[in-house]
């Protein structure tokens, strides 16, 4: 990349001078979606590191949230099949993060204080 755009220029760097084109992040999103579909159902349900320690040292009884989130633990209400529910919640989370972080990043990149 040989300085085609400067940080202060609002013009999006979509020129073909650099190899950073549009398509790579479409591939990136596809890889992430594939990871969710293939790996999420295979995730280990054993207690994780903190839970293992909580069990072994006796404070697992305190494992409650005072305020929880919108959905339960990576499941979509009304979908009974746990695999489908996990995959859908994973894709939902992926979509939310793509949009949120993209928008936050774009505002921070464009509106220079």
């Amino acid at each position, binding site marked *: *990349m040989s*300085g085609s*755009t*400067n*940080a202060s220029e609002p013009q999006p*760097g979509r020129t073909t001078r*650099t*190899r*950073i084109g549009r398509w*790579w*992040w479409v591939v*990136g*999103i596809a890889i*992430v979606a594939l*990871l*969710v579909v293939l790996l*999420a159902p295979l*995730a*280990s*349900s*054993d*207690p*994780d*590191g*903190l*839970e*293992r*320690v909580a069990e*072994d*040292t*006796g404070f697992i009884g*305190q*494992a*409650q*949230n*005072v*305020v*929880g*989130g*919108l*959905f*339960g*633990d*990576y*499941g979509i209400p009304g979908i009974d099949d746990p695999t489908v529910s996990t995959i859908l919640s*994973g894709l939902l*989370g*992926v*979509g*939310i*993060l*793509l949009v949120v972080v*993209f928008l*936050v*990043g*774009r505002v*921070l*990149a464009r*509106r*220079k204080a």
Partner: protein
Amino acid sequence: MPFLSVATAPVTGGLEPALHAADRFLSVPISLLFWAISAVVIGIAVRKTNRQIDEKMVPLMGVMAAFIFAAQMFNFQVAGGTSGHLLGGVLAAVLLGPWAATLVMASVIAVQGLVFSDGGLVVMGANIFNMGIIGTLGGYWIYRTLATLFGGEDRGRVPAAGIAGWLSVMLAAVSMSLMLAASGTSPLEVVLPAMLGVHAFIGVGEALITAAALAFITATRPDLLNLRPDRAARASAGGSSATGTTAARAA
């Protein structure tokens, strides 16, 4: 799996990742203290990111957030009926710089808690500190130090990031242990060795995934390695137009 249940609804799934604390694991003063600390660090990260980043890095921030969320859903098996998952702070920082990476990590943890009840909302500040700040900023510093020792980032990127990834998990485990001890949940001499022992194994997964992801990007899209503000600034300064850019150094 009956652990980490929400106060109102019992939990049925089995995907509670490592190091996500539940609300009652920590005392209210500790929870509030780390909400305040995390808020301040996020504020600094917003300002630094605003000064440093170019629009070209924004899609990579989005994809990294999505990847880290997906990877954190995948608990891998470690020894003795225990599981763990990627944190991702070092991976994000190597690609995005420490401050944008901190924002990405905080976003992931916020969505996990707000939407999927993974980690309590009262302790979210502590979770952001442990999983999104200390391993990301500390891990990035370790990465840069190791990469210099290994003869520069282009030669030492993959091993430096792997080792920094392992250490970032250990840093997070130490921080979590100190919070648990300060909250009166468990004495430090009990909880610290237990946390370090378990996370020494989980950190190996972090090291392998971090190294593999960077090796994959190096092989397929090495240009993505130059989007980080300090590298982009150096590339443009060394190029045809030596523009005085504000994104001089990431740290």
